[in-house]
C-alpha cells in the first residue's frame, strides 16, 4: 500500500487554555493550537467585525492591531498572541463616540459593501501610528495590502488624508 494520508491520520489535537486580551477585555479560551487569530475572533469570541476575505494573507480584510501594530490575523495563530493587546474594529470607538477614522470613512463614503472596511480602518489606524505616510501617494502605497473590490480607493485615501491632516494640525 502506498503511504497515503489515510495511513497517517492523527487524531484531532488536544485543546490548550489560552488567555487573550481583546479590546481591553481578558478572555480565556480552550482552543486547538491550529486555530488562527482570525477564526478565534470570529468563531470563538463572536467578534465578527474582523473579516475573512482570503485566509491567505493576500487581501487584508482580517487586519487587526496587535500592540498597536497592524497584522493579518489570518496569518497568526491565537496561541501566539497571549499577553498582547489586540484591538479589533469593535474596539476603536469610545462608547457612542466613533474613532475619527470611522467618522472620516462615513463622511467620504470610503466603502460600499463594507466587507473590507474593518480591515481598511484598522490598517489606516495602524498607518497613522507608523508615521510613514507623508503624501497621498504614500497612503496609496502603504494601504495597498488592503484590497477593496468595490474600488472605493479614492475615497479611502481622502478619508485617511483627512485624519492625517487633523493629526498634523
Amino acid at each position, binding site marked *: 500500500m502506498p503511504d497515503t494520508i*489515510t495511513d497517517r491520520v492523527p487524531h484531532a489535537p488536544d485543546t490548550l487554555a489560552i488567555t487573550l486580551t481583546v479590546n481591553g477585555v481578558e478572555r480565556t479560551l480552550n482552543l486547538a493550537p491550529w486555530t488562527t487569530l482570525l477564526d478565534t475572533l470570529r468563531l470563538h469570541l463572536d467578534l*465578527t467585525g474582523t473579516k475573512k476575505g482570503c485566509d491567505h494573507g493576500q487581501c487584508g480584510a482580517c487586519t487587526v492591531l496587535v500592540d498597536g501594530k497592524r497584522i493579518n490575523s489570518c496569518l497568526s495563530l491565537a496561541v501566539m498572541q497571549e499577553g498582547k493587546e489586540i484591538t479589533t474594529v469593535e474596539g476603536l470607538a469610545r462608547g457612542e463616540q*466613533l474613532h475619527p477614522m470611522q467618522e472620516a470613512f462615513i463622511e467620504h*463614503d470610503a466603502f460600499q459593501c463594507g466587507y473590507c472596511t474593518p480591515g481598511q480602518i484598522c490598517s489606516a489606524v495602524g498607518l497613522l501610528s507608523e508615521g510613514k505616510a507623508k503624501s497621498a501617494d504614500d497612503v496609496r502605497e502603504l*494601504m495597498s495590502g488592503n*484590497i477593496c473590490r468595490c474600488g472605493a480607493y479614492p475615497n479611502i485615501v481622502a478619508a485617511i488624508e483627512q485624519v492625517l491632516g487633523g493629526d498634523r494640525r
Partner: protein
Amino acid sequence: MIAKPTFPDLLHAPGAQIGKPVSRVDGRLKVTGAAKYAGEFNVPGLLHGYIVSSTIAKGRITRIDTSAALKVPGVVQVFTHENRPSLAWFDRKWKDQDAPKGSPFRPLHDDRIVHSLQPVALVIAESLELARYGARLVEVEYEAEPHQTDLHANRENTFTPGKDKGGFEPPPPPRGDADKALADADVTVDLEFTQAAEYHNPMEMHASTVLYGEDGTLTVHDKTQGALNSQTYICNVFNLSKSQVRVVSPFVGGAFGSGLRPQHQLFMAVLAATELKRSVRVELSRPQMFSFGHRPETIQRVALGASKDGTLQAIIHEAVQESSQFENYVEIVVNWSGQQYRCDNVRLDYKLSRLDLHTPLDQRAPGAATGVPALEIAMDELAYKLGMDPVELRLKNYTDIDPNSGNPFSSKELRACFRQGAERFGWSGRKLEPRSMREGRELIGWGMAAGVWDAMQGQANARAVLGLDGKLTVASATADIGTGTYTVMTQIAAEVLGLPIEDVTFNLGDSSLPMAPIEGGSWTVSSVGSAVKAVCDMVRGRLVKLAGKMEGSPLGDAAEEDVVFADGHMSLRGDPSKRVAIVEVMRASGTQSIEEEARSIPYYLKRSKHAFGTHSAIFAEVRVDEDLGTVRVTRVVSAIAAGRIINPKTARSQILGAVVWGMGMGLEEEAMLDHRLGRVMNHDLAEYHVPVNADVHDIDVIFVEEHDDVVNPLGAKGVGEIGIVGVPAALSNAIFHATGVRVRDLPITVDKIRKGMR
C-alpha cells in the same frame, strides 16, 4: 450636476432628500463591525462544512473514501453523491431567476465531473478546523476523460444560441449589406479582440448559515443578490414549503453578479442542515471562489467602414464566447454595437462554444463590458486612419434613435458627456499623433471611449408603515450589495412624505418582505425605487384625507396636489402658514398606524415605443514606462448620463468603483487556465490580480443633467454598471497614444506592451 425634477413637489420642497449627497444610512454599522454578513451568524452547536473540490476537469468519480475523515473525532458526516438524499428531479426545479437555458448544475448529483474544482464532497464537523482537516482526508479517485477548456482551440466549434437568458435578446437581423459596404468603404479597420475570463471575487467569500429551528423551519443567512431567489431555489430543490424557509441577507459583502444565482454553498448548507437537523454553515475558500460562474472568455471581430469624412458605412461585430456543456449562458456582447452609432449597414453575430468549465455568470455590465470596448478601440483605430479626433468621429455618427429598434431614446445626453468630459479633462489640447507627450522615462497618452448600458425596470412591491410617532418604515425584499439601496430608498421615502432621513427606516434582504426582483443590471432604483415612491404616495393620500377630517383642519378640504409635505409637516401650497405636523394628523386620526403596500409596474406602453440607456464618455491619461512597459493610470474623467441621480455621493462611489473595475479588466484581471489540467491556476488574490490602492489615482466623475419622464416615475436610471463600460477601451486607446502600440487582447499586461515596443 443633478437631473431636473420630474414631479413638482420633489426637489422643490425645502429639505428635499432626492439629489442630496446623504451619507450611507448603514455606514455606522459598517465602520463599527456591527453589520453582519452571511457567514457571521453564530449559534451554539453550529456545525461547519468544508467542501472537497474536484482535481480533474472531466470524467467520473470511481471511488470516494470518506472513512478516514469520519474517524476524526468531531467530524459528524461526509456527504457525497453516494449518500445524498433524493432531491428534485426536473431541471425546472433547479432553475433560478437568472438561470439560462439548459440543465442547472446539481451539486453531489452523481459521479460525473463536468468542470475542475467541482464540489464532490462536503465534510461536516463540530469546528471549522476539523471540517477542513476532514476534507483533506477524503480520498477521491477519478477516471479522467479528455477535456476542452481552450476557447481558441474551439473557436470554430460553435452554435448560435437563441433567446436563452432573460434580459438578453439575440442580435437583430442584419441591416443593409454590411459586408459589401465594408468592401466599398474608403477607410476600413478589421480587427480581432480577445479577452480573458474574469472571476467576480467579491471580498466576502460565498457563505450560507442555515439555522435549524426546533420546528424544522430554516432561517438561511445567504450571500445573495435576491433573498427570494434563494428561497425559491431551496424550496424547489428540497421540496419544502415557503413557510418553512426564510432567507435573510441584510448585508452582502460585494457580489457584482456572483450572487445572482444560488451558489453551491447554499445547497450544501441546506443539505447538511436538513439531513442532520442541526444548524450548519458552509463557506467557500478563496480558491473555491473560482469554482463557479465568471465573465466568459471572448473572441471578437469588429470591422468598420467609413467614408473619408468619417461617416460610418459598415459595422460588423462578431463574437464567440464560452459556455458550459450544460447551460447556454448568453450576454450577446455585440448588440450595443448596433445601437451606439448611426449606420445603415450593420451585421451582428453571436456564437457560443461549449467548454468543460462551469457556466459563466453575469458580471458587472455583462455583455456591454466585453463588447463595447472592442467597438470603441476599433472606433479609435478608425479615427487614426481618418486622421480625425476620436470625439469628433463619435459626434459625426451620433444618433438619438436606437438603430436596432428604430425607437427614439427616452433620453440620451451623451453629447453633453463628450463635451463636459472633454472640457474637464482638457482634451482640446491633445495632439492626435502617438508618442507626442513624455516626461522623463514616461510616455504619456490620452485616450477616450464611449460607454452604454441599458435602463431596465422590473415589477416590484413595497410596504410602508407610518406610526403614531411619525416614523416611517418601508420594506421590500431587495438587496444592498454595497450599491446604496438602503440609503437611496430611505431618501425616496423621506422625499415623498417630507420626513427627515432619521425618521425613515428601510428594510431589505429578507424573503418575508414584499416581492422584489434580484438586484442586478442597474435596475433596482428603477424597479424598487418606483415601488417605494408608489407606496409612499399612497400613505400621502391617506394623510391628506385624515388631515381633512381633523377638527378645524388648517388644510381644509385641500386636494392632494395642493398639499406640500416637508419637514415633517403638511402645508397648503400657496399659503405655507396653513400647516399641520404629520404626527398631529396621526394623533387626531385615532388610528395607530397607516399601512400600505404597492406594486410598481413598468410603463409597458410608453416603454414599447422607446429605447432606454445610460451613457458615458471616459477620458483617461496613462503614463507608460518606456523601458519597462508598466502602465500607470494617472487620471480618469468619467462623464455619465443616467437620468436623475438620487444620491450624488453614493452614485459617485458606484462610478469610481466601476472605473476601478474597468482598470482591472483593462490591465490586470485574467483567469489563467492550464489547458492540460483544464483548471484556473491563479485561483487566489495574490495571483489573480485586482486593482489595489496604489494602482488608482485621480478619478473625476461628472453626472450630466438628463431629464427623463418616460423611463420610470423617478426619472432615475441606475448607475451600477455604466461606469465600467468602455473603460478598458479608453485605457487601450491611451496606451496607443502614449506608445504607438495597440493591444487588443485584454488585460493589457506589460509583456504585451513590451512586445509591441520592441
